[in-house]
């Protein structure tokens, strides 16, 4: 009997701590915003946010932390292993890999995040309205999104690149054009089920207009999956950028991006012998994508008031 009593689980201990604090009168109603508090209690989200900010800040303040120009060719120092001079070594034409990763982050994050947010903006705002209203508009956008999703992306990119020319903005535009479809369909699907909820009927009966109901009341209820989708597509767009850059269709090769760096390491010899050219950038991409996903998860949980925290 005593043995059982003595055995305290982690939960018991944390409960005891809380009780002790309560008895000491320390436990006050937190004045902090409830959603902020919830996301701060989510360790994964906080960890993700820290990593995300580190990578983001490093990219933004790149000139302060690297001493090399990411594009400066130094043929005297080709394919050097990591050393005090070059923390992550150099590539085949002697460019500093660390500088390239840090500067490349600027472009890759811009492309990934920018495209995901752009696609979400288009897809969600259309999906919200059309999903609630239904009818002709909805059918029209649905078919349109199907056409874009069915169209081979490579062909579309080739087409647009040949018309618009190869540039960073064009790549983002292309990603938004090809990426809004799934966002639209997902938002629309959520709206279709949410608009049948009784509170939507009640809001309507209280005299609220369509725009208020859709964007102010239903959209926040549909935002969880949208958030997760934005984070997932950020990751997807970063990877797509890498793939397109490899084909020479993405970001022009004279700009350093994570994709361009990775794809410089296509040769088997480099893969086997010069790990510093692909491993660090691969890790950075993975870390970034993971952290973005954790943030998305945390956001979803914190915006849902039926989950305690």
């Amino acid at each position, binding site marked *: 009997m005593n043995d059982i009593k003595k055995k305290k689980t982690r939960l018991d201990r944390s409960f005891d701590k809380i009780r002790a604090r309560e008895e000491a009168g320390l436990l006050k109603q937190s004045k902090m915003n409830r959603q902020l508090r919830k996301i701060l209690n989510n360790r994964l989200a906080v960890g993700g946010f820290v990593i995300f900010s580190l990578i983001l800040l490093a990219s933004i303040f790149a000139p302060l932390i690297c001493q090399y120009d990411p594009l400066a060719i130094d043929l005297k120092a080709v394919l050097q292993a990591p050393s005090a001079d070059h923390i992550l070594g150099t590539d085949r034409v002697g460019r500093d890999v660390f500088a390239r990763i840090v500067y490349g982050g600027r472009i890759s994050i811009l492309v990934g995040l920018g495209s995901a947010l752009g696609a979400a903006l288009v897809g969600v705002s259309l999906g919200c309205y059309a999903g609630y209203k239904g009818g002709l508009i909805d059918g029209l956008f649905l078919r349109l999104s199907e056409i874009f999703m069915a169209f081979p992306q490579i062909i579309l990119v080739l087409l647009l690149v040949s018309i618009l020319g190869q540039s960073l903005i064009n790549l983002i535009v292309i990603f938004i054009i090809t990426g809004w479809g799934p966002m639209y369909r997902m938002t629309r699907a959520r709206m279709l089920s949410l608009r049948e909820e009784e509170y939507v009927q009640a809001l309507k*009966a209280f005299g609220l207009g369509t725009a208020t109901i859709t964007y102010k009341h239903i959209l926040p209820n549909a935002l969880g999956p949208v958030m997760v989708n934005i984070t997932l597509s950020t990751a997807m767009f970063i990877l797509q950028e890498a793939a397109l850059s490899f084909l020479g269709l993405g970001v022009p090769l004279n700009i350093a991006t994570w994709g361009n760096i990775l794809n410089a390491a296509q040769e088997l010899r480099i893969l086997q012998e010069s790990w510093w050219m692909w491993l660090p950038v691969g890790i950075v991409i993975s870390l970034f994508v993971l952290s973005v996903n954790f943030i998305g998860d945390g956001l979803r949980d914190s915006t849902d008031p039926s989950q305690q925290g």
Partner: protein
Amino acid sequence: MTETREKILRVEDVVIRFNLRGKELTAVRSASLDLYKGETLAIVGESGSGKSVFTKSFLGMLDKNGRVASGNILFEGENLAEFTREEQWLKIRGRKIAMIFQDPMTALNPLKTIGEQIREVITLHRGMNRQEAREEALAMLGKVGIGDAAQRYGQYPHEFSGGMRQRVVIAIAAACRPDILICDEPTTALDVTIQAQILENLKELQREMGMSIIFITHDLGVVANVADRVAVMYAGEIVEYGRTPEVFYDPRHPYSWALLASLPQLGEKGEDLYTIHGTPPNLFKEIKGDAFAPRNPRALKIDFEEAPPWFAVSDTHFAKTWLLHESAPEVEAPKIIQRLKEKSLKGLDYGS
């Protein structure tokens, strides 16, 4: 009593049709009603009799495949049945006619605090600024019996119990200051003690604001409690209406008889419970004669041939049954109904 009051809503011969996979369903067949200022009108009837659909048409809230096929809904000099655009309805919904629904558990947006939800309709309909709206919202919460309103104001719907949520919904509806409040079975999902409190809240709000209430229910006990007048609805048609005591103690339509006779409280120990045999008519088909005739053991031949017109029982009491025609044979009402009548003559009150 009610005759002297002003009519606030006149509904004339409304027919509501739904298009279901190419077939026409007539949910409401020529229903009429008048609503006086400040009164409570109960619409009773079994599930599927068209009560909800009928009242939803006053707000333009029929499903997309439904329409008011004919008839007039006259309110403040306008015919609501002719409204086609959403903007027209926005002027009516909430500020003129508001509606509350059956299930309080799902009637509030789970992501907004109840304070926000009340404040929103107040700022929308009454043009108050944020601070005024907040005070008004707190006052409304107090009126519907929510203690500690200031603290409750910032809470989310999931922190409220079912009865509390229904109070919040009522507070929101009343905060719009509508002329007419339609309550679609507001107490069905609640337990009996809470029911009584909610009904009391509603009555109080009505007294204070002078609004008219249309009360949809199938709970006759509730009707006896709250309603000034009762309309009995069957198969999309109002078959009898009158002041509550008239309909309760002296029902004339066989369907009203059957409804009342089915109340277990009114039976005597040892008697079999009364049930209405059969099912309501198929609303896809044209109904010939009295819709209730096939289920009515006392139906006359003419009930199957021709629909009965309105017959006046008194100045305020009307019923659609051939039994009231001067050449109709004497038909005895069920025993339970006869007993009710005797009780009423003795001056006993139903439900007291």
